[in-house]
């Protein structure tokens, strides 16, 4: 079973994504910010990470930078969910190593499709 980590400071968003991906039978773990996610990843070998941009303690970009500096997670697909229209932030995030940007609110089927694709290595 594939393992997915959802990193978002909003418990509603975490629940929603869990709900959207329910049928796919992934093992889903939640983290409430970048710091929490780093701790969870120490024991969890995630196959895909869905991360928010703006979070307390450690934001999405910093989290992805930290993530990519870890040998094990160098290629793990990362989807960033965000509402930002700030092109500069998006560029920073992509440079940090985000694989895909999705705007909130995301279409549930589109998210499922993209998650499946990234997990298959597409």
């Amino acid at each position, binding site marked *: 079973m594939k393992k997915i980590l959802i990193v978002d400071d*909003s418990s*509603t*968003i975490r*629940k*929603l994504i869990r*709900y959207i991906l329910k049928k796919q039978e992934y093992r889903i773990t939640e983290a409430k910010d970048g710091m929490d996610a780093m701790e969870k990843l120490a024991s969890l070998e995630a196959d895909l990470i869905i991360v928010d941009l*703006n979070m*307390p303690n450690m934001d999405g970009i910093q989290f992805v930078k930290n993530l990519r500096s870890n040998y094990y997670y160098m290629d793990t697909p990362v989807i960033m969910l965000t*509402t930002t229209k700030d092109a500069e932030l998006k560029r920073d995030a992509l440079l940090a190593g985000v694989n895909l940007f999705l705007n909130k609110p*995301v279409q549930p089927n589109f998210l499922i499709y993209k998650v499946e694709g990234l997990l298959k290595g597409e």
Partner: protein
Amino acid sequence: MDEKMSQNEEMKEIIEEFIVESNELIEKAVEDVVRIERNPDDELINGIFRAVHTIKGTSSFLGFNMLSNLSHKAEDVLGRIRKKDMEPDADIADTLLEALDFMKLMIDDIRVKGTESRDVSHTLRKLEFLNKADTRKKIGEILIDEGVISNREREELLEKQKQDGKKLGEIAIEEKLITEKQLSNVLAKQQAHKEEQTIRIDVRKLDELMNLVGELVLGKNRLILLDSLARKGSNNNAMLDTLSDVTNYVEAVTNDLQLAVMRARLVPIGKLFNKIPRLVRDLSGEFKKQIDLKIEGESTELDRSLIEALHDPLIHIIRNSVDHGIEAPAEREKKGKSQKGVLSIKACNEGNQIIVEIFDDGKGINIQTVKDKVKEKGLLSEGELNGMSTREAMGLIFIPGLSTAKKVSNVSGRGVGMDVVKTNIEKMNGQVYIESEEDKWTRLTLKLPLTLAIMRALIVRVNQELFAVPLNTVTELVKLYDGLIKSVDKNEALVLRDMVIPIVDLSKIVDSSESRIDEGYIVVCNIGEKIIGIKAHSVVGQEEVVMKPLGEFLGNINGVGGATIRGDGKVILILDLPAVIEHYGSLRRGFNPTRTFSQISPN
């Protein structure tokens, strides 16, 4: 079909999560907005930004587009503050608070109706206006564009602005040209709304647990009794040992469980105190008072239901302090006080009780005015008033229907006086004290129990009946002897040190056939400003009692707060002392209440 239902169920759960989360975020953001005005701290601003940002994201996900749009606009303003494009001043804070108020209302709408419907075009325009660069200087023009003020009114405003150098918006509010009414309307509605449940545990479950614990406490009492009975009668030592073991075990478990459940229900009073800065900010604007607010002891914990019940009385007391207590800056200066009045609110633990103290250094209470008012209303005679100590006279302020403020203002005069505050606090088994020095200060002290359901009581016997007297009210026991009780105006009284304490003889009410109490004890009880003595044939001891309501049929009996079941399974009544005092007072004046103890003797 099933799947669809479970899907709906899950969606409902997500929306519930959304409501709880958003309300928490908004509540925190409101507190922080009030703070940034004085202290534009980056971390605070980031926090507010994130809160609004999160709500924008989640609401758009869930299709609450109006809410999403409003939070989007508010987020833009916060973004500008964050980038230091603008300084958060009172105007900006007002607009943000207005937006947050509407967001909260929308979430309430979602909770009640499943969708949000509010006309927020006005707030949206204000936010958009803040988002335009450097437009704020021309606030007058915008007001004209919106048709809120006329050209001539703007000229006048600008003229005034030159004179006192305040912001145009402030002057416009002072001149009653814009939005204050809207703001107070929104606030009133917000007040009327019941608060979201904020412990992240289902409260019904907790209540159930609390009831269970109540039953368990009764079971423990039964076991303890059984144990003592068996000890007296049985020779079987093994059985006795087992029984003792069980008793000890049940007792320990019960105690632990009781504590744990109580703790789970305890909420820091900060939940309530956090709302005060906003309230005081709004009130001081409304009454043109300058107030230095001090809050201490936010982490003091008490039962959740008490926090809720404390909400209205506390807000009323604060309104009173701001409206009638603290003087206007000019008046204060004349008295040689600093222009800023001090309003201090403190909470602390004192044994099994919580003390909440509300202090202001305002004009205090003029006892003569209070007495005059009481006389004028014919509530007490001149003789009665003259015989009163200062302390007792202060207590007059709690008499129903008494308002010493010359003019009823729209804030304090909402039909609730200090009498309602007192009634509400006493309903929680608490007490209110007032102290004051005229022209200097007023201090209200509220004493509340940690929890309502379980309390320590003194069990006393009157004739053959047992009664439970809440232990937090009992101050001392006096052994009866001949000549101790004096007769004052045909009423019995006890002279204890320098106090004259009126005596309540329950035996007269319980059952008239029995003889009078000539020996036994006087239980001296202190409730608020009043002291009474209750005659008892004997004192059985202290016990933990679980308060059970008497139910619809027997409810509202004067002087009885509820009942409890003792170890032997017998029901005994718990005295409601404030009501006993009231009842006793009316008996003294020759008034015969229709329902008394005699009709409800619990046999």
